[in-house]
């Protein structure tokens, strides 16, 4: 157990390499999923697997679609300013 704990700790002592590129935006997906799951876990009256899953997928989808729309709008705005 001590060795396992030491191994886990060792993996957490050095940061991963993540560049400042468009691909790094994918990191918003896990956090959006976490926010969605927690929000639905606190708001739903009863927790039933299929209902919970549907609600989570619907909210997660709407968050991602909204973020894409905002990103496209900002991209269009900067393109208009620069060009």
């Amino acid at each position, binding site marked *: 157990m001590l060795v396992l704990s030491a191994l886990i700790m060792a993996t957490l002592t050095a940061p991963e390499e993540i560049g400042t590129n468009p691909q790094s935006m994918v990191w918003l997906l896990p956090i959006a999923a*976490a926010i969605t799951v927690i929000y639905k*876990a606190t708001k739903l009256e009863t*927790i039933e697997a299929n209902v919970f899953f549907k609600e989570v997928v619907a909210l997660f989808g709407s968050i991602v679609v909204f973020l894409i729309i905002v990103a496209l709008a900002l991209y269009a705005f900067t393109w208009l300013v620069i060009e």
Partner: protein
Amino acid sequence: MPKRLSGNHVLYLIIVGLLGWFLPGGGYFFLNEKKRAIIIFVTIALTFFIGLYVGSIGVIDPIGAKPWYMAQIINSPLVALLGHLTAGGGYPVYGRPCEIGQIYTGVAGLLNLLCIVNAVYLAHTGRIGTSGN
């Protein structure tokens, strides 16, 4: 469903809140909302550990990044132990990994705050033990 402490409702609410702070989902578990508690524990723990994996334990910085630390410590008091380890500046982290690590660990803490408040509210209103088992 655990019985309320008669005449000591405030203490009961404090216990629910503290359990939720010591272990994410602990407040709900005490209220017999086991499914909810497990979902919350797994999600918050995973989000927090993704943050530590990406940015290392250096993202918990009680001196250089105090506002983030205040959000991170809501995950659990155990975060203070990590803060004690990193306070000397032995785990430097910069740039994008630091940013993403701080966001993940900080948001995990704020999500736990939401869960603590909600568990205390449920305990206060008494709408507990009817679901999530």
